[in-house]
């Protein structure tokens, strides 16, 4: 009976985060002036669109029992590539294509290293995080690369039905990857591999192919986010999005994605992103100095990981003793 309940709890893991989000929003609306205003809400959602876009694929990576630390660097590289190619060729389409291609190649590389060379993804993507950041500086010559094309900025500042394009793109990613996770054989295979890689292999799941595809998708989506960011700030910045990977992973874990793989829900991830965004937004409204914001962000991450760990039922006294 207990096990049944535990398993149910672990499968429907988005309920906890939803409660946290509702309580958080209620408290902030009550106690933080201007928080609940429509203007602030729009700003809040725009501010999380970058993290939100990247979380949709990070969810798949974590569900696979892997991690990708290189996303921040891919965002920077894609923005810089896009900017350089647009300034050199004058073609927006070529620039966007170059950025997407660059990001996808990095993701593909990560995937092959993890799947075929059997390198731990934490280490493999720590390496590519450094390499790709370096490439971003090399491609840009260490400077911000401005983009002299007004029509490209539209991607960052334009709006449809009163909603900015960056938000539309994030929404699109949530819809697409929500369907991928829940309705496709591929998505179920991701969960199966994350839940039990050897059983998946023996059951006929094409494990390597799924792993490589997930990392490639992560690269593509991070690049997409990087190009949109470049359009918002009208330039390619090689030093942008430092530490983005941590915000993205935090949001996923807050949303109930297990670091042990096999468990993920798109709704949970959305909630996790909003929790992160709301906390950040409230700190800004309250004029809390940046230094404290680091502490709060770290605290939220720690909280999320502790909750994840407790949910995995590894905290019974017996298991604690056993571990020693």
């Amino acid at each position, binding site marked *: 009976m207990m096990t049944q309940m535990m398993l149910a709890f672990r499968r429907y893991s988005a309920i906890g985060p939803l409660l946290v989000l509702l309580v958080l929003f209620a408290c902030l609306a009550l106690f933080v002036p201007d928080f609940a205003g429509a203007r602030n809400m729009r700003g809040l959602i725009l501010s999380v669109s970058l993290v939100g876009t990247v979380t949709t694929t990070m969810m798949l990576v974590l569900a696979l029992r892997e991690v990708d630390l290189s996303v921040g660097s891919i965002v920077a590289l894609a923005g810089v590539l896009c900017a350089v190619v647009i300034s050199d060729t004058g073609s927006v389409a070529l620039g966007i294509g170059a950025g997407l291609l660059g990001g996808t190649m990095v993701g593909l590389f990560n995937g092959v290293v993890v799947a075929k060379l059997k390198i731990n993804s934490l280490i493999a993507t720590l390496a590519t995080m450094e390499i790709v950041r370096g490439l971003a500086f090399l491609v840009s010559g260490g400077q911000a690369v401005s983009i002299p094309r007004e029509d490209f900025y539209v991607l960052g500042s334009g709006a449809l039905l009163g909603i900015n394009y960056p938000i539309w793109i994030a929404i699109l990613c949530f819809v697409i990857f929500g369907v991928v996770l829940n309705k496709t*054989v591929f998505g179920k295979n991701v969960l199966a591999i994350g839940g039990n890689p050897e059983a998946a292999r023996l*059951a006929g799941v094409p494990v390597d192919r799924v792993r490589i595809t997930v990392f490639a998708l992560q690269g593509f989506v991070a690049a997409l986010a990087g190009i949109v960011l470049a359009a918002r700030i009208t330039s390619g910045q090689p030093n942008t999005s430092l530490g983005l990977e941590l915000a993205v992973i935090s949001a996923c874990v807050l949303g109930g994605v297990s670091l042990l793989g096999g468990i993920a829900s798109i709704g949970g991830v959305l909630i996790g992103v909003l929790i992160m965004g709301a906390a950040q937004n409230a700190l800004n409204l309250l004029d809390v100095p940046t230094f404290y914001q680091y502490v709060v962000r770290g605290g939220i991450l720690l909280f999320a990981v502790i909750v994840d760990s407790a949910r995995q039922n590894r905290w019974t006294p017996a298991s604690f003793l056993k571990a*020693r």
Partner: protein
Amino acid sequence: MTAPILQFTDIGKVFPGVVALADVSMDLGRGEIRALMGENGAGKSTLLKILAGEYRPDSGALAVDGRAVAFNGPRDSASAGIAIIHQELHLAPDMSVADNLLLGAYPGRLGLVDGRAVRARARAILARLGEDIDPDAKVKTLPIGKRQMVEIGKALLRDAAIIAFDEPTSSLSARETETLMRIIRDLKADGRAILYVSHRMEEVFALCDSVSILRDGRHVATYPDMRQTDPDHLIAQMAGRTIADVYGYQSRELGPVSLELSGVTGPGVKQPVSLSARRGEILGFFGLVGAGRSELFKLIYGATPLASGTISLDGEPRRFATPRHAIAAGLGLCPEDRKDEGIFKLAAVRENITITRRNMETAPLIRRQEESGRAEKLIGSMRVKTASADTAIGTLSGGNQQKAILARWLDADARFLLMDEPTRGIDIGARSEIYALMYRLAAEGKTLLVASSDMPEVMGVADRIVVMRDGAIAGVLTREEATPNELLRLALPDGKPVGAAVRI
């Protein structure tokens, strides 16, 4: 006999869907060697885990030396003077024998370890065991029998008054077994109480003073004197029924040869293996742990690469680079380790059944309704006991998990089934059902390869038995030729039976 040093009183333990122990009461005296016997799933390991402090009993009480004890973990059990020598030894392979012996009880002060004292104490303990082991040798360089001595040395060092052995001889040679029995007799002479879990009748009758039998989680009988019983009687007590009832073997018409191996070698299969199996046949594979049965199955299944040889299905040579290729050709594997290699414990029973077929088809989207329909039909026809198709498979009993994995292969339309230890850890009722399913599948014309270290099981279900030893085929026996002695003669390294490894 003096007052008992260890008392179990009405111990009960329930896991989801299984009563592991019910009202088990038994006493153990000082200087007594008590055999604890029972078939797989009878509750022996659960009782040992309760003794070790790994599980807490749901009901009942445990007393050591007349005092009630409640263990919150293995440390409590150890400090109550209990030591368990497990089948898999808990040693640090890269550390020295002396370090392993004294780990956690290093002599020294201020956190500094006194290396000389460590070696001296280690040497003293090893001398007491009468064992010639270098205290500086790394544990991984020792043969398995000597490692076990190190484990016993640890128990002595802690001055454990109660020592439980969990199938200690399962991977020992005949000589190592003799040494172990001598040491256990010494421990008895010291006044220590020994609980000895084993399937081997000969050992039990040679070594033990008394025997307790568990069946389906219940204490069936205790004989304070071994002379009150005999092996046949014990087997009947353990099974609670005759062997024929459990296996219910049904003979079949066999079809043409469907699976043929010739000269197959690879990791764990050292000598070329050539054999054939026919449609409708259940081909048993018997051998000791490490004989190469699982390894051979993984080779056939494409899970490990073939070094040489060919595999033919229905007369056509095939080459499987991955399990996917093998599955596409009609193979299916029920792995030995269900938990780590078979099931996805958080996923629904339905998902666990349909995962293979959906991966063999090309449609990218899941057809939920169609899959549910198929899964539910299989759950019904194979009598998988589950609350619903959407229940997480991790909550089911081992037998029902195994049936779900079999259902996976029926769903994928497998024609060749490789079943590795198909009933390990499965209670007796579910085992009979699984055997019945095996006969049904064979009767439908499928070819079943069934590996088991459970001799009566292989003898009970297989049409022919391939005996493996040390990564090679030692012999192939027909049902009529397969006697326990013949099987053991082929399976044991020195060709001499040590004791009948009887498991029902």
